[in-house]
């Protein structure tokens, strides 16, 4: 938020009111499919959003909503076959990442955009020492002179608050705890001072006290370095605490987008409303009954007609079955893809 105001004052004050803070990454109409035996799965369908400088942008959704596939598509990490990006553009620094030659995107990964994955147990090579793995991005991208690599690795481990970093460099992954391994993953992600960090469920496998430590750390570090973060998660508590803006995905599409306040206090898409109502909260009245969303998410190889949420939607109208609603702007930051006009009373 603070970066937004500082850029606004730095640039001409005559800029239109709706001019957003500088865009770092723009995704336009991304479309990723997977070939399956029983047909084509449209895992990500016509997804557009941008990531601004210095912000934490969240993508939330349940399993199969396409949030992780979206993230992996950006860096072209989709296993192909069976996956394929069949449409869209991913603009970073004016160039389309989907058009870059293979060696150019490889150069960019880890240097300009890095990714922190969900599984600290499987994302590290079990047979290599921590120091060797941590040094890899530095060596590949030549961002630090050879004789300074070890020094930089120690500095990185210190930055993610791993005690006794000199000794840890010689440890193997199995000698570290889960939280420690995730700290190493974060250190690797930060090694080359990327401008964008994509964190895909970075703490899902960790205990809650450790999750809190890791997320606070990740947020502090990205803030200090003024990089942006794309946070991909199913955990609404995590989103509420760390995200500036939120994209809600359902069945491969963005159904609502807004500031954290919009999404939690003025949700306008029935799916978002349903998520909020089905979640037990620590500040609920005890004895309240949850209101689940009926049914389950659709099979994306045979998605429903019209709005993908209509079979589970309690507000559905005949039109919802026939026509798919586009993502439309409600106000400056708030967008929704729904034919029904919900207000605060639902």
């Amino acid at each position, binding site marked *: 938020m603070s970066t937004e105001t500082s850029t606004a004052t730095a640039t001409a004050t005559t800029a239109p009111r709706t001019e957003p803070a500088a865009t770092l990454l723009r995704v336009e109409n991304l479309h990723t499919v997977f070939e399956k035996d029983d047909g084509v799965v449209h895992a990500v369908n016509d997804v557009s959003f941008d990531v601004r400088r210095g912000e934490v942008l969240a993508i939330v959704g*349940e399993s199969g909503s396409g949030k992780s596939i979206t993230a992996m598509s950006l860096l072209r990490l989709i296993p192909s076959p069976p996956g394929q990006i069949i449409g869209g553009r991913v603009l970073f620094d004016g160039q389309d990442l989907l058009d870059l030659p293979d060696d150019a995107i490889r150069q960019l990964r880890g240097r300009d955009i890095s990714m922190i994955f969900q599984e600290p147990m499987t994302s590290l090579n079990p047979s290599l020492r921590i120091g060797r793995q941590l040094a890899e991005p530095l060596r590949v991208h030549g961002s630090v002179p050879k004789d300074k690599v070890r020094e930089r690795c120690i500095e990185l481990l210190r930055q993610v608050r791993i005690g006794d970093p000199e000794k840890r460099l010689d440890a193997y992954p199995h000698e570290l705890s889960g939280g420690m391994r995730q700290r190493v993953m974060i250190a690797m992600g930060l090694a080359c001072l990327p401008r964008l960090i994509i964190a895909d469920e970075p703490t899902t496998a960790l*205990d809650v*006290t450790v999750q809190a430590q890791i997320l606070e750390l990740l947020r502090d570090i990205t803030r200090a370095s003024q990089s942006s973060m794309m946070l991909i998660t*199913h955990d609404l508590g995590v989103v509420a605490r760390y995200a500036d803006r939120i994209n809600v995905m359902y069945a491969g599409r963005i159904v609502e987008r807004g500031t*954290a306040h919009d999404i939690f206090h003025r949700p306008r898409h029935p799916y978002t409303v349903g998520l909020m109502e089905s979640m037990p909260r620590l500040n609920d009245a*005890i004895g309240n009954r949850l209101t689940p969303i009926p049914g389950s998410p659709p099979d994306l190889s045979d998605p429903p007609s019209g709005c993908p949420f209509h079979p589970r939607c309690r507000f559905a109208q005949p039109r919802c079955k026939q026509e798919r609603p586009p993502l439309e702007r409600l106000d400056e930051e708030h967008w929704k893809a729904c034919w029904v006009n919900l207000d605060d009373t639902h």
Partner: protein
Amino acid sequence: MTHTDSHTDVTTPLLQVSGLKVHFPLRPGLFGKPAAMVKAVDGVDFTVHRGETLGLVGESGCGKSTTGLAVLRMTPLTEGRIVFDGEDISHPDAATTKRLRRKMQMVYQDPFGALNPRMRVLDIIGEPLRVHRLTRTRAEYRERVMDLLDRVGLKAEMADRYPHEFSGGQRQRIGIARALAADPSLIICDEPVSALDVSIQAQVINLLEDLQRDLGLTYLFVAHDLAVVRHLCHRIVVMYLGRVVEVADRERLYQAPRHPYTQALLGAIPIADPDPEVQARFNPSVDGEVPSPIDPPPGCPFHPRCPHATDLCRREAPRPLDVEDGHSVACHLHDPSRAAEMNHSEPSYQEQARNIA
């Protein structure tokens, strides 16, 4: 569904666990060398009353799942006593075990791994009926399974399908129907909703609530998600490294947690509301991670991470003490008889509390 055919007084607790210890050898020692022991459960006491839901919570390695397995008598006890429905089941013979299998059932975490993929739903749900010979004819068997399907919100025609045709939430319903089949009095739920998406999770939570209300079930609910536990459990046992650190009803536990670990655990849960006022309550004060249960720290197991730890805590494990009726805490801070020793090693609790606030 019939009521439990228990002859015991309904005022006696359904389950009483006292001094429970479950230690596992890490690997066989070489040349008869004693193996290292994992002290998964190391002295646990709690009681489950009829018709209530007791939550067993804690982070990984705290022993909550092992405690559940010990109650089910699916893992041998190292020490301690388990009394179920007035009967000591610490060392059951084969016949008692079989009887227990009927009275206690389990709902598992992984709805994908817990169902045999080669069996039809009819036979998955009906298995306890066959094992315990609870139905006489094929027709009665089928009818009973249909009742169970209906109970858990599934359609009768689903009986002849196989598990892979169902979603995660539906599979969890199948698992619950199976657990209900033999008309048990205690159901042990081990993380029954943690593998499910939020929207589906709420369906299963509501189902568990409905079943308890309609059938008078008692649940031992093992989970790590404290928001779900607060919603479902009447009383809560907080475990850390194989021990019980705090027991209280949910109102008191969440309003006024006493043990520093419970306070840390509750402070570390991100709250699903971005308002700065609400977020100010978030207080991930505790550092470090849970130590290994192979070589647990001496004294209080939480002392290496506790902001209030003193020499006494490093030396001597605190015993659970009632701080008020129905609320017990194992922490020297709350033991008036140790106040002098606690204050002796500064900083004092009050100062620490002020520093944190």
